[in-house]
């Protein structure tokens, strides 16, 4: 009951005129970056970050999270109308969304996608409403050793469940940690890993990395694949919208199953992309229409969309209550929290009640605003796709350069950003996952601090990670996840070949 009271209080904060206006602006900007190839939720949110420094933290997070919702919706629009996923997490939506739109039912496809997306988001927010403060309460009792164990578990789950080649995930994670360590060490004050470049003493901001990895990297991939926007009609037939949404309850099982998969993948940092693929794959196996998937099946749209949004929303749960973001965008937002002077983690629920519940309430409102706005603006944003790529590409390069520079007014950051762009291209091309890299840059310092503090407590003995039942089970679960890919591989070897097509598609788009 206490949660509901706090939520009501949150609504009084979220429903102010200023915050509603911020939601509209955020959602529209989000749809814009979601629609444009090369710009996505992670770099869209990082671009806005420097502009939020003068704002109240609640207003700032409402703006940024609304942008996130907008980007999630925007990605689906281009997937369905153009067969071009605006976001990696909406790749699975193209499988059935585009065929349905090409058959002459674009409104049905869009309305089904938005309806199930809204349902997924709603389940995610409800989960946060009831679970987040409880998780935070448990986490209040955590010491450094428990914290390190939770971080370890988070990173291990990337390796075990992320879907990319495990050793590539490990390398991406470790590079992120090393980048996080560049600059002044907060504990000893000594300068680390600057390789003789004085300007690196301030460290490398995650914003710079995100601009390069997701912005420039994505552009290079897009120009290589020579995307052609072959649009189907983007007219919205309002009667059909209500009919399609009204038909959704018929697919209740698919909705609930996909939402559950999404929530699970969002809380454990599997992320929305993995969630949507997994949900599509499972729906294909269990649906009665499974064989017709790929030719414009309704459930083929419901499954990835619901899971995508459920994961995107619930990725904020571990960010708020533990200080561990569940997706790349959540990681960027958490970086923002730290810049605004808040300390993500269980203490937020004690010290910053207005912030937390204002945000949670705004997630309910923001998603409604997003559905309404995205339906209204589909024709406008679809028209945007007709601007030639040759014009959009240099504009995005300039935006990324300005974004990287504005973090700390350093030219070196622009050069680093371009370097990250090359890395982003290579990594995407060769299926190294990018999300763990960003995550490690954002929380690398915290993980290291937790490790060093626990070592101080135990006077250098690793036995502290097996001191009590909680820590031990977290560490053991982490190791189990780390070894999961190895175990699966052995199992596959024993049973012979396996279904590789789905895995191939999934890896290709990571």
């Amino acid at each position: 009951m206490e949660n509901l009271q706090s939520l009501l209080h949150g609504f009084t904060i979220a429903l102010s005129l200023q915050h509603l206006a911020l939601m509209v602006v955020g959602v529209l900007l989000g749809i814009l970056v979601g629609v444009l190839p090369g710009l996505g939720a992670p770099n869209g949110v990082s671009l806005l970050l420097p502009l939020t420094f003068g704002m109240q933290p609640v207003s700032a997070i409402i703006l940024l999270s609304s942008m996130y919702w907008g980007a999630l919706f925007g990605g689906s629009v281009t997937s369905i109308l153009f067969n071009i996923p605006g976001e990696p997490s909406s790749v699975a939506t193209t499988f059935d969304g585009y065929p349905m739109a090409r058959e002459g039912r674009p409104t049905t496809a869009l309305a089904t996608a938005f309806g199930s997306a809204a349902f997924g988001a709603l389940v995610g927010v409800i989960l946060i409403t009831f679970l987040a403060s409880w998780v935070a309460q448990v986490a209040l009792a955590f010491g450094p050793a428990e914290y390190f164990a939770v971080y370890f578990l988070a990173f291990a789950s990337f390796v075990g469940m992320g879907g990319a080649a495990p050793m590539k995930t490990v390398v991406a994670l470790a590079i992120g940690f090393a980048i996080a360590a560049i600059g002044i060490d907060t504990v000893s004050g000594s300068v680390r890993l600057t390789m003789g470049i004085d300007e690196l003493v301030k460290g490398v901001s995650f914003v710079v990395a995100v601009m390069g990895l997701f912005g420039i990297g994505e552009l290079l991939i897009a120009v290589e694949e020579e995307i052609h926007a072959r649009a189907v009609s983007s007219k919205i037939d309002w009667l059909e919208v209500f009919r399609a949404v009204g038909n959704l309850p018929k697919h209740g099982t698919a909705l609930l199953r996909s939402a559950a998969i999404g929530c699970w993948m969002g809380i454990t940092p599997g992320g929305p992309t993995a969630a949507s693929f997994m949900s599509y794959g499972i729906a294909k196996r269990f649906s009665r229409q499974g064989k017709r998937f790929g030719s414009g099946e309704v459930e083929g749209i419901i499954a990835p969309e619901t899971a995508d949004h459920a994961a995107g929303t619930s990725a904020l749960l571990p960010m708020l209550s533990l200080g561990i973001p569940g997706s790349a965008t959540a990681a960027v937002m958490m970086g923002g929290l730290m810049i605004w002077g808040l300390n993500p983690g269980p203490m937020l629920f004690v010290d910053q009640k207005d912030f937390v519940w204002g945000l949670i309430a705004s997630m309910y409102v923001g998603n409604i605003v997003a559905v309404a706005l995205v339906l209204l603006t589909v024709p406008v944003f679809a028209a945007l796709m007709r601007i030639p790529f040759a014009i959009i590409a240099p504009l995005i390069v300039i935006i990324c350069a300005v974004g990287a520079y504005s973090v700390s007014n350093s030219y070196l950051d622009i050069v680093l950003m371009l370097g990250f762009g090359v890395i982003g291209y290579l990594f995407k091309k060769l299926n190294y996952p990018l999300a763990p890299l960003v995550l490690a840059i954002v929380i690398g310092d915290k993980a290291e601090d937790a490790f060093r503090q626990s070592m101080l407590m135990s006077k250098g003995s690793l036995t502290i990670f097996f001191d009590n039942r909680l820590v031990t089970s977290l560490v053991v679960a982490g190791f189990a996840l780390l070894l999961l890919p190895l175990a699966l591989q052995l199992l596959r070897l024993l049973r012979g070949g396996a279904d590789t097509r789905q895995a191939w598609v999934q890896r290709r788009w990571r």
Partner: protein
Amino acid sequence: MISRRALEAVTAVLTGSFGLAVVISSLGNGIGWGNDGVDPGTFPFITGVIILAGSLYNLVRGLSGIGIAVSRDDLRRIAGLFVPAAIFVGAIPYAGMYLASAGYIFGVLALPKHQSLPRALIIALATPLALYIVFERMFQVSLPHGELAATLGY
């Protein structure tokens, strides 16, 4: 034309040398158990070793890759995007963000005849203007003006 094997190898060598640099650099900070707890170089050292070991593994795995990763046409298109972008970034310290972005847009649009000359000119002038209004005016973020502007006295 770049084979998948070559691309995997280059990437693994790249990550591996970064790992090696991290290992060497962290040795200078001291690793192991010191007077005030874990030495500052320890954590980076461990990550460096993991990067190095993982890269070696990926190098060996990558050598069994087959097929073409980037075709000649792909490479041309990528260079067509990346080279002008790199020149743009290289020009920023001298020409400043505004001049560099105007020149960049104009060069990319007008030279390969993607757009007509007047249209390229309009977009090239509108971009820095928009940057100026949004950043310098609305959000008071000063973008680099460059040495050229400095010598001219701005």
